[in-house]
């Protein structure tokens, strides 16, 4: 461990050492003030790096990753992006990725309870209610403009699936690509990936983007030399993705499709496949000068198949929203959504062993108003009425106090509900909705020019938490079922920008979740520290990115603790004319540690999976303009 720390620190020192010369040569206003205005208009400006700003209006401590960060730090999947964010930890088994943070931690529940929005489309499937962010995810990271993680319940806006938070993905526009972009990747463990994207914004205002990609990889190597510590089951996998997006005037049409194949190392009968797709059509129009209407119609599809078994669902819905601008810059939003989960199935040998369809009608809205020049309030609520369940109400009240520019305090209290997923309804006797009461305080402060701090404390009370697993083919054991859970935590993040574009972000998250009898819950590291340092090393053309993650010890499935881990990744990325490329060394120090994944009765395993060891990744691309 000490050795690890020394290696990481020495990398950081080396890294900072090379940054010095670039700082020279900055000009100040007094040196150019006498240059004729006409000439200044023709002079190139060095655009300053910005501290990333949240675009969502949520009164939470939002984390932001931009397209530039994706390039700088060599993120290959949405999971890589999430694992760089404050307080989040991503673990994997051989098939899926699991999310941990702010009191949610059970890998047998996959990544449920945090929703994923792709340009406003809610992406969780309707059987397991989980999100997909690794090779099973819908979107190539090269197509992502920015990702915001909004912790705290988003149920007031998005309902069930956003019970404990929202990951908001905004994709690039065709005009951002401005031609044909191709890239090829190669890496450790047989990683091969190819992508072709075309994007253009036309004179008549039409914006169009089409992208296809294909990946093959032979999985991961174990970082441990002592392999019997870990579950040795790793699979080859590959995927194919298609994404299309177009907008014209008030209309936008978007579709994404994915097929991910898992190849078992043992026998082809264990080969599995995920299929995921969506189609989304939106129209926005102004109704008079102060009302804007948006209508959104969507369709989603998900299937998992393993030899003779198949499960998943199909759904569609329509959402109609009015944004009304009132006097004094106050805003009222009113919306109504109808969603039809017309197919939720599990089949064995073509025989339906489970089948469900359900319809949900939701009303939602919020009122955003000023109480004083420096004090603003937001009250929002959402009512969901689904099939034979009693309607649930998820309200939230927030106060935002900004005593001066650069200083914001946000306080919020809320209640949220989560109806059991279709899969949970098939397994649990008790199908009462999970309930959350939450309170959060956030302080965002600019500390002089180009430094910002975010501090947050929160307290959640969770009731009716429904999680469990099959202990054998007959017995489903619910774990912590219906027990109240109480989660408390504090987070601190500092971000600084240097004049030459060097960006440092450091965050610390402390979290503690307890059951009613004061037991800690599994897979929840109490302390998570992240460091991201990105810097230009050759004008604007070349950047170095260092990402360091410390994840503290956590309780495993077998009631023993797994030690913490410290992992550092280094990426060199650059652009030269129409060429771009990245070279990453991930897990530089070859840290050995386990990640917690699904615990299945048939493995007889421990639910522990060896994390990926040191590995290398290379990407080369070219854009035809």
């Amino acid at each position, binding site marked *: 461990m000490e050795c690890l720390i020394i290696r990481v620190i020495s990398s950081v020192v*080396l*890294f900072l*050492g*090379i*940054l*010095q*010369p*670039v700082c*020279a*040569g*900055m*000009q*100040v*206003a*007094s040196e*150019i*003030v006498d*240059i004729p*205005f*006409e000439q*200044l*208009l*023709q*002079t*190139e*400006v*060095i*655009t*300053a790096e*910005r501290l990333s*700003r949240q675009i969502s209006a949520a009164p939470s401590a939002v984390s932001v990753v931009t397209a530039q960060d994706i390039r700088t730090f060599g993120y290959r999947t949405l999971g890589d992006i999430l694992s760089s964010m404050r307080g989040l930890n991503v673990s994997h088994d051989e098939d899926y990725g699991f999310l941990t943070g702010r009191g949610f931690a059970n890998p047998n529940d996959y990544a449920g309870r945090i929703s994923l929005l792709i340009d406003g489309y809610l992406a969780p499937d309707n059987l397991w209610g989980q999100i997909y962010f690794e090779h099973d995810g819908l979107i190539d990271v090269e197509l992502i403009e920015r990702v915001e993680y909004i912790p705290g319940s988003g149920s007031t806006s998005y309902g069930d699936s956003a019970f404990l938070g929202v990951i908001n993905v905004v994709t690039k526009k065709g005009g951002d690509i401005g031609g044909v972009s191709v890239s090829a990747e190669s890496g450790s463990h047989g990683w091969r990936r190819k992508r072709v994207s075309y994007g253009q914004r036309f004179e008549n205002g039409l914006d169009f983007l089409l992208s296809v990609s294909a990946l093959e990889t032979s999985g991961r190597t174990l970082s441990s030399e002592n392999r019997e510590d870990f579950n040795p089951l790793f699979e080859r996998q590959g995927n194919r993705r298609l994404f299309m997006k177009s907008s014209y005037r008030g209309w936008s049409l978007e579709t994404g499709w994915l097929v991910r194949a898992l190849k078992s190392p043992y026998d082809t009968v264990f080969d599995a496949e995920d299929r995921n797709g969506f189609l989304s059509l939106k129209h926005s129009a102004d109704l008079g000068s102060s009302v804007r209407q948006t209508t959104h119609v969507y369709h989603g599809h998900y299937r998992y198949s393993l030899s003779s078994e198949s499960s998943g669902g199909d759904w569609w819905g329509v959402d109609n929203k009015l944004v009304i601008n009132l006097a004094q*810059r106050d805003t009222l939003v009113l919306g109504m959504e109808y969603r039809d989960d017309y197919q939720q199935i599990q089949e064995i040998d073509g025989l339906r062993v489970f089948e469900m369809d359900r319809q949900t009608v939701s009303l939602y809205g919020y009122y955003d108003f*000023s109480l004083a*020049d*420096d004090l*603003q309030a937001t009250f929002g609520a959402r009512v969901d009425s689904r099939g034979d369940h009693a309607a649930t109400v998820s309200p939230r009240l927030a106060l935002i106090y*900004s005593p*001066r*520019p*650069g200083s914001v305090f946000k306080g919020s209290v809320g209640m949220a509900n989560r109806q059991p997923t279709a899969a949970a309804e098939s397994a649990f006797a008790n199908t009462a909705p999970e309930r959350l009461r939450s309170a959060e305080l956030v302080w965002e402060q*600019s500390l*002089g*020019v*180009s430094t910002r701090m975010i501090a947050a404390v929160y307290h959640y009370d969770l009731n009716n938490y429904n999680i469990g697993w099959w202990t054998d083919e007959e017995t489903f054991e619910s774990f912590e079922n219906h027990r109240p859970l109480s989660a408390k935590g504090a987070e601190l993040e500092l971000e600084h920008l240097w*004049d030459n574009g060097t960006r440092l972000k450091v965050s610390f998250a402390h979290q503690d979740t307890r059951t009613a009898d004061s037991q800690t819950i599994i897979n929840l590291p109490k302390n998570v520290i992240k460091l991201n340092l990105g810097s230009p*090393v*050759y*004008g604007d053309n*070349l950047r*170095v990115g260092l990402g360091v993650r410390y994840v503290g010890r956590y309780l495993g499935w077998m009631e023993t603790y797994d030690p913490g881990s410290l992992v550092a990744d*280094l990426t*060199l990325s650059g652009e030269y004319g129409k060429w771009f490329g990245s*070279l990453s*060394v991930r897990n*530089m120090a*070859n840290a050995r540690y386990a990640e917690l994944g699904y615990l299945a009765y048939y493995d007889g395993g421990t639910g522990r999976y060896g994390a990926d060891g*040191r590995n*290398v990744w290379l990407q080369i691309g070219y854009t035809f303009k």
Partner: protein
Amino acid sequence: MKRVAAVVLSLTLFASSALAMAANAAQRVPEFAMKAVYLYNFAQLTNWPPRGEASDEPFNVCVFGGDEVFHALEALEGRKVNGHPLHSLQIEDAVAVRQCHLLFLGEDAGRRGRRLLDGLGDASILTVTDDPSLADSVAVSLVVTEGKRLAFDIKLGLAKGRNLALSSKLLRLANRVIVE
């Protein structure tokens, strides 16, 4: 495998440092210094209605929610604008804004910046911003073009409503002039 990774790592670091040494100070201007000098030029190319001020009274350039631009303006302190020494100040509220000749709203201005603009009435203040969300409500909005030049758009109606006379040179140099 370890050795390969170690070699790759060393090469990466070596290449980075070599390239960093080679980085030259290009003849380009940092964005915020450029924005400060633009504000100075806007002031030179605009006529304010007479306020009966003595010539030693300052020409006040106020900044709200734009720390970087305020910092850059400090280098121009005391330069003459229509005979008055330029003075830059950061303002916090609607009362302080009355003393401004030029008001710059930076990217941190946010909702309070909007309310500040709403409360200006017809005061003879040249309003400038680099925040796209405020661009509709100010006389001059700054925008960095794709060619990395700093351009500006003018809303003539908003300047005239405040009794400000923009010179023909300023209008000629603008990227766009919206008359309305």
